[in-house]
């Protein structure tokens, strides 16, 4: 392939500069700052800070509250990822089979994608309000005394529900395009080879969707860990005390509510390492192994 070159050396640098500045100012600098802060104990009222080494980290490691929230975050991530992927896959397979009015169905299914996480959380709040929310009413009618913001498990269920609802459209779009990129003739060959649509799906369609699936898996884990902040914030706002929260939300609560900048930074650093590990996992394992064509 022919590569286009620049005549001067400074022009490409100049063209890249805005992006580099944005990355430096909004990503590297705060990240570096977080790493630095995580080794200090900051005065809550801003009167200086003292170096404490790994104290913030050892505190976290010994904190039963942190362990509890980490466990909840793990469960939350597994549930959100599983249900968003499974529901989206079912919807995509069904939408892919629709012939008449396919575009309308697809647009309707993608619609939720445009809803911002805090708005999604707020809609959840309205739908699940324990005195007049229609979904809470529904739960009550089947004998589930749903108490959002009061009962831990109920609030957790609401968080999972809203997070899944918000994420399904993204997965749906990817799964649908993944399905449509499977050659028609391959599916037709399967139609001749296997009578059962269940077998055709698991033997042919599903393996060919695997690259899409693994990509979405990583995207969804990241989503459940980080991007659900808005949903969590709206659903537990005011009384985070006894309510479920995720690790990212705890960073916010400790740092901005509790003014424990050092401890909060240490938590951020732990999350950064987690993201790094996930990214390496995605690039190394998945991009290399799941490749057919």
């Amino acid at each position, binding site marked *: 392939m022919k590569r286009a070159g620049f005549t001067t050396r400074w022009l490409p640098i100049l063209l890249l500069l805005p992006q580099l500045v944005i990355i430096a100012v909004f990503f590297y600098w705060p990240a570096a700052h977080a790493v630095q802060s995580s080794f200090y104990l900051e005065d809550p009222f801003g009167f200086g800070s003292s170096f404490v080494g790994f104290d913030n980290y050892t505190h976290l490691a010994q904190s039963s509250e942190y362990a509890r929230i980490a466990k909840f975050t793990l469960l939350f991530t597994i549930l959100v990822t599983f249900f968003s992927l499974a529901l989206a896959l079912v919807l995509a397979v069904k939408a892919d089979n629709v012939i008449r009015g396919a575009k309308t169905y697809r647009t309707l299914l993608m619609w939720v994608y445009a809803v911002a996480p805090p708005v999604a959380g707020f809609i959840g709040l309205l739908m699940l309000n324990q005195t007049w929310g229609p979904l809470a009413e529904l739960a009550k009618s089947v004998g589930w005394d749903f108490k959002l913001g009061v009962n831990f498990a109920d609030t957790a269920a609401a968080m999972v529900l809203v997070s899944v609802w918000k994420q399904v459209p993204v997965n749906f779009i990817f799964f649908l395009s993944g399905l449509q990129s499977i050659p028609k003739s391959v599916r037709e060959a*399967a139609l*001749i080879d296997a009578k059962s649509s269940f077998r055709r799906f698991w033997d042919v369609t599903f393996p060919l969707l695997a690259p899409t699936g693994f990509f979405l898996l990583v995207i969804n884990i990241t989503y459940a860990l980080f991007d659900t902040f808005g949903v969590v914030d709206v659903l537990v706002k005011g009384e985070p005390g006894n309510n479920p929260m995720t690790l990212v939300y705890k960073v916010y609560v400790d740092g901005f509510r509790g003014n424990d900048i050092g401890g909060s930074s240490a938590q951020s650093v732990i999350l950064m390492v987690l993201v790094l590990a996930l990214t390496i996992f995605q690039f190394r394992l998945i991009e290399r192994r799941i490749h057919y064509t």
Partner: protein
Amino acid sequence: MAQVSLNKIRKVYPNGFEAVKPISFDITDGEFVVLVGPSGCGKSTLLRMVAGLEDISEGALSIGDRNVNHVDPADRDIAMVFQNYALYPHMTVRKNIGYGLKNRKIAAHDIEAKVQAAAKMLNLTDYLDRKPSQLSGGQRQRVAMGRAVVRDPALFLFDEPLSNLDAKLRHQMRIEIKALQRRLGVTSIYVTHDQVEAMTMADRIIVLNNGQIEQIGTPAEIYHRPASTFVASFMGAPPMNLIAAQGHDGRIMVGDMALASNNIIGPVTMGIRPEDVEIGPDCEIPFTVDIVEELGAHRLLHGQVDGQDFTIHVAKDVALSAGPIRMTIKPEAMILFDAQTGLAL
């Protein structure tokens, strides 16, 4: 193995487009039938209806003695070879070939034996553990064949299986497919737009145009006695010469030359194959050579008769250059078509 019978099969799409007008024909047991026609003539649609990949709008289809209009593709006892091979990219060659058997509840060791036998027949034994992406085009084509052969179906369906191969490989596979079909004796329907494939492989050719049958016949019949000007110009390379003529006083006139005797009155189209012409100084028809096309084994003279385009096939030792010569037409090789309908008279 089975005979296949199509009775007034018709395909109308929901938008009202009639892709296949009611078509009827029977295929006898073990016969190799080629459906040939230009793009959009309905040949692939017809094949896909036989396979069960398209619904049959009207008419009855039977394979063996069984009506299969509403039978699932997997239950029609057919095997199909697709144009782009349609191999399962995530399965090895072994699994690709065996997949149809596995779904028919055949014991694993029987599948392995059948796959081995098919692979041996198609020279694929060394490639059984490879994925399709690690194979060449010709090898993929063989795997697609293997997948069909291993099932031992009542009917093979081929949908332009050779059009993704280069010319040399296509020639080789053409012979292999034909030989394989002969050996297995499986009734086959083969769709192509390539008239050479149709001529060389078919026991019987069905020429389709605009969703209708133009002609059914053996390759020789189709070539020498085309039923319409469409067939005459579609089959054969170069195609049959078609020139406008007038029937009058018991003779067929082109310009002021009488080329044949016949009692037809009025305008007709005269068809002559390029090789059914002789040239020589004593011949009666003047012919102007515009271009001499050198093909090695023979030569084609492109020129004009009475101002109409005409091509003559001559042997490789006939040395000629552009300019006027004289020719004569073998009278028994001439075919007359109705000038309006294009049908043979």
